């Protein structure tokens, strides 16, 4: 089957910020996104180590959205601005999809 190259933007971010990130994605006109729960993690803020969900604030979520390569910059710039002040990371990777018009 023919597939088409797209980009997958992935964001791991502290839970309180989830709604903000999703609103941003809505605003940036992505075709959709998926949010996965996160069990544990560690980063430069070190505090969220292992069961380190201190008082539940420390939980994280992982959000990913599949977009056309041409849209990546548009999405990633405001996203990065938002997330860089918070606890979280952003990555981009390549994926292939079957129905290009869907994304």
């Amino acid at each position: 089957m023919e597939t088409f190259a797209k980009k997958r933007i992935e964001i791991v971010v502290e839970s309180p910020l989830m709604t903000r990130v999703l609103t941003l994605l809505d605003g940036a006109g992505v075709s959709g996104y998926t949010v996965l729960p996160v069990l544990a993690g560690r980063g430069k803020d070190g505090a969220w180590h292992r069961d380190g969900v201190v008082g539940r604030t420390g939980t994280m979520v992982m959000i990913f959205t599949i977009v056309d390569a041409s849209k990546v910059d548009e999405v990633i710039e405001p996203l990065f601005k938002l997330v860089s002040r918070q606890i979280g990371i952003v990555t981009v990777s390549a994926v292939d999809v079957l129905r290009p018009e869907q994304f």
Partner: protein
Amino acid sequence: MSVVELAATNLLSPMVLFFVLGLVATWARSDLNIPEAVAKGMSLYLMLAIGFKGGASVAAYGVDGQLVLSIIAGLLLSALIPIVAFQILLRVTSLPRVDAAAIAAHYGSISIVTFLAAIQVLDTAGIRYEGFMVATAAAMEVPAIIVALWLAKSGSITADSNGALGSGANVGVEVGSRLDAETLREVALNGSIVILVGSFVIGAITGQAGLKSIAPFIVDPFKGVLCLFLLDMGLIAGRGLRESRKYLTLPLVLFGLYMPLIGAVLGLAAAKLCGLSVGGMALFITLGASASYIAVPAALRLALPEARPSIYVPMSLGITFPFNLTLGIPLYISLATLFAR
């Protein structure tokens, strides 16, 4: 009962012992843990129960000006404490102003579990209290956050003219600029306030008949659920402490121990002004002394992301909460007894 007797009874209550079990388990690095969904379910249950019982009690004894007075006093107290706390922190620590403001917010706001624990001790000791104190508790959650954000903002200006203060955290250009209407709405309507106040109102509407119909759910098993919940609190507090040891300097640890006492005294004054009963006074003091570790951290992550949760969460949850649960509450009840009438 003397304060010593009260403290001894409290320390040997199942409630406190289960909390200690949680601490011990973490300390021994056991993998004991309570699923987040279960902990969340228990927390909803506890707030529903306490709200409903408060409302039903108001329905039974009627409402008068005291309810309104006590809510206003609560709002003011919650706004005042952070200012005091902030000034102290600036003097005794070298924390950036954002962190100081963030910590201050926690002490102005309240811990509903500490409140619950105090109610249990009052119940056991047979001391009555005003049902509307639940509403006062809810009212005290938010003002502290707003005041603290304002403190942080003023801090940001200072930080600009005084770079040295900014070291240790990225005290930024935009600090304090994020308390928009949306964030305020989120904070004021956070789940715990809504279920607490909602259940309070439902309790007030359905009264004793309503309470009776669901008492086997919200009254009888309450204390047992609280024990299991406190086990989880012990586990979380213990883990938080271990993770954050390195951030907790001695001045901060001490602050976590004497600040509740300052809050207690301010709470006592407020309660006195409102003319509450001994039980009501004890609860007001407890509210003044207790520090938030759920609503405030969540709000600050949105509104003050520069402040470091690795400092403010363990202070509130790892130091002040255990102190209040074990020694604080008996002390506050004794205080109330002493100053009553």
